[in-house]
């Protein structure tokens, strides 16, 4: 019996990373932009997506969504009203989506027939952080009702996101939300984040967010 050292040098989540890399390649071949939406439960991911799907479709883009939840297909049914193809991933208790669940759900989808795919993750600001789903952009949402210091409480998730979307802007005054401080706290943990302020109810900020997504989609198509 001999003892020896074996160098490994790989991420702990190498299996998920490998599957995510395969997904990313598949998305690139199909030329579609994929966004992974993360937030705490109730921040308004589904409400924002309802608006985004409708607006992008109205502008002629081909959009689809995958929705993750622990239980129920309520969100998928809500989103399907937009007319876009929507599939629910029910994780049956698991608190985040992993690349293999996305791979399974997309197995028989013709991705070439899409321009945008939105993946609504399970509401959770911790565990989805580690699981790459092959997305082009990770979008973290936080509502004005959650407190200005949320980014400081969940720096790992905010730091892993490319875009931060402040939601429920119409409630900001009622909640006495200090938006300047909220933005400052987002920048503090993720200086590179693009920040959007939106309200799915009034439609505020949606045009800017939609324009940004379209620009990202075109940049991807043109090889950045």
């Amino acid at each position: 019996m001999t003892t020896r050292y074996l160098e490994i040098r790989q991420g702990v989540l190498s299996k998920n990373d490998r599957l995510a890399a395969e997904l990313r390649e598949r998305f690139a071949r199909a030329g579609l932009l994929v966004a992974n939406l993360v937030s705490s439960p109730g921040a308004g991911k589904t409400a924002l997506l309802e608006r985004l799907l409708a607006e992008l479709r109205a502008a002629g883009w081909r959009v689809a969504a995958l929705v993750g939840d622990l239980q129920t297909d309520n969100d998928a049914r809500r989103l399907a009203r937009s007319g876009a193809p929507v599939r629910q991933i029910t994780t049956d208790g698991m608190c985040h989506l992993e690349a293999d669940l996305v791979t399974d759900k997309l197995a028989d989808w013709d991705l070439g027939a899409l321009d945008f795919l939105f993946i609504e993750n399970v509401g959770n600001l911790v565990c989805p952080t580690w699981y790459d789903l092959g997305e082009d952009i990770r979008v973290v949402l936080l509502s004005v009702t959650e407190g200005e210091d949320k980014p400081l409480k969940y720096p790992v998730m905010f730091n892993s996101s490319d875009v931060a979307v402040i939601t429920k802007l119409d409630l900001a005054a009622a909640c006495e939300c200090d938006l300047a401080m909220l933005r400052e706290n987002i920048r503090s943990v993720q200086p590179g984040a693009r920040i959007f302020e939106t309200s799915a109810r009034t439609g505020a900020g949606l045009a800017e967010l939609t324009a940004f997504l379209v620009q990202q989609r075109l940049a991807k198509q043109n090889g950045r």
Partner: protein
Amino acid sequence: MHELAIASSLVESVQSAARQAGAGRVTQVFLRLGALSGVSKEALLFSYDVATHGTLLEGSRLIIEDVPLAIYCESCRVEVRLPGIQSLRCPRCGQLSPHIRQGKELEIVGIEIEVEDAMKEAI
């Protein structure tokens, strides 16, 4: 306790590498854990014992190297360590930096394995 899921993935990755190398047993696992990895060292160590049970890693030691968060500050033109993870602001000049140089690691560096001598000759 999300560290149990992380520990299970760790065991899966290590076990597959150890099997490929013909190991009969894994005795030590060396891990780098960044301050901004989001993983709690204590919880991971606790989960490790549970996750390794009944595997090639059972009874092995998990050795964790803590990696502090460091950014590159463009105005100071130096790499600086940060005292916490709530602010990516350079402690010298106060500027925010998006350039993280270290501190997000969740990486298996290597493992110590026991290999049967006959197996070793075959390799």
